[in-house]
């Protein structure tokens, strides 16, 4: 299978895409330096929020910089964590003297690079806390939650942490809230076809035309079950059941987010949302907030993920707080 890409030199993909993204949203964001996206109008006195990760997940991560969300995003190469110096620049840009919370997906490379950046920032006297998003139930079994990777649950954690910071909460509180949002958020995805890292010359995985893979990660990391493509209702049922089986005591109200991976039609995403909503309600849960769209993609991968956040009053209020970022507005 060959992939048709509308690009120039594969080595320029990340910087050209970031340039375009910032031009397209220039009323909200700006490039602080080549790989660091910041708010067009920096926030005043508050805890700073830094998000980030590899590129290829657009609109993540620059799309979550803005009022009520992050102050800065550090962007890496395709599917590769940004290096410490880029993250350090993002931390400095986000620091308003009240400390900085970094929220990022739990991947080996990100953990090392963000961790090194936090040490560099600490040496400059900036207080930094980090929360690793780990919502993907397919990536490690129950009991090993700290090994799970972060996928679309990123957006819920960024939103809640961003709202808490915008509301003037201190660093320890913002960190607690980000952890709480992560603890109450579970996701699982399904992949229908692969993507190609520009310059690699090959798809990231092989998946026959009539097959789907349940639980595949946003970089094409293999999932937990491969089988024939099934109707949306059935796929939603499997995803919702796996997510619910992972939670001890189910609360009544949930937020439901369906994330398209890049090449799955909005029509399909909404059919999956409908199916997931019905599956949740059939199991006694109330879907009180819904989000559908491409929040964190995987280049041109086809597929989608379902994210469920089990809500309590504080999380719901934070989700509903105002936000004005390129990829999330309230």
């Amino acid at each position: 299978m060959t992939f048709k890409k509308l690009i120039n030199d594969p080595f320029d993909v990340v910087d050209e895409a970031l340039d375009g993204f910032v031009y397209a949203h220039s009323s909200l964001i700006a490039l602080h330096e080549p790989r660091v996206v910041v708010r067009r109008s920096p926030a005043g006195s508050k805890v700073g929020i830094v998000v980030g990760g590899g590129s290829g997940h657009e609109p993540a991560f620059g799309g979550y910089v803005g009022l009520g969300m992050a102050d800065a995003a550090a962007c890496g190469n395709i599917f590769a964590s940004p290096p410490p110096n880029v993250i350090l620049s993002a931390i400095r840009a986000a620091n308003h003297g009240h400390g900085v919370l970094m929220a990022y997906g739990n991947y080996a490379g990100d953990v090392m690079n963000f961790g090194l950046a936090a040490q560099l920032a600490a040496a400059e006297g900036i207080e930094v806390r980090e929360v690793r998003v780990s919502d993907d139930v397919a990536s490690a079994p129950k009991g090993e939650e700290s090994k799970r990777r972060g996928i679309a649950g990123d957006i819920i954690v960024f939103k809640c942490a961003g709202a808490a910071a915008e509301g003037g909460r201190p660093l320890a509180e913002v960190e607690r809230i980000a952890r709480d949002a992560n603890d109450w958020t579970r996701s699982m995805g399904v992949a229908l076809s692969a993507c190609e890292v520009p310059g690699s010359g090959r798809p990231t995985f092989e998946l026959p035309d009539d097959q789907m893979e349940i639980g595949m990660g946003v970089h094409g990391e293999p999932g937990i079950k491969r089988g024939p493509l099934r109707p949306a209702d059935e796929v939603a049922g499997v995803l919702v059941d796996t997510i619910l089986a992972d939670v001890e005591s189910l609360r009544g109200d949930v937020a439901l987010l369906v994330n398209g991976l890049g090449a799955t039609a909005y029509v399909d995403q909404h059919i999956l949302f409908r199916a997931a909503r019905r599956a949740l309600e059939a199991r006694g849960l109330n879907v009180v907030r819904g989000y559908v769209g491409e929040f964190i993609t995987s280049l041109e991968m086809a597929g989608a993920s379902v994210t469920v956040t089990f809500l309590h009053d504080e999380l719901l209020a934070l989700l509903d707080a105002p936000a004005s970022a390129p990829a999330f507005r309230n």
Partner: protein
Amino acid sequence: MAGVRECALAAADALELARDELCRLDSPAGDGDHGVTMALAAHAVRNALDAAPDASGADLLVHLAAAAGSVGGASGPLYASALLAAATTVRQAGPDTGTVPLVARCAEAAQAAIVNLGHAKPGDKTILDALDPAVRSLLLETSNTEMGDALAQAATAARAGAAATAQMTAAAGRARVLGERSRGFADPGATSMAIIIEAAASAFRGRPPRSATRP
């Protein structure tokens, strides 16, 4: 005699040649970008060598660490911290440069840095499965051994270690989530480490790096 600069250039050449092979190895278990990441690192290494034409030894190792780290991902910080540890070892050695025991101590320090940062151990199907046998091979050499011979022995050990990862189950890194299904494919990180050590050995013997193997 070849030094850090020649070895780094040879490694950059070899990694660029191996880009497709490394991407192929990274696809079954990871995210398919390892070859691209290492090619970007090679590009950064060339820039660093050009930007510091007079640097050598420990100073050059520090420049190379910054170049390797600039690509991010998992490989960037691991190589950066390994090269910084090697630079520190060279500095502490003072006038004792270019001997096989010093290179062995550098490799040992580099390995310790990778373990410290990545929390993996030999057998976890990572970069360490190529580096660990190479370090053990170098530590067995005496100061009478020719550098080219010592590195060639280490490269053979590294390549065998990388090949053996095909029979391992990933216990760390991104391939970890694959568990048993990671068997059957050599680890891309271990493979690129073997390629780098082979390139260093070739540089000392005045030979071009091996060409990339084709699937």
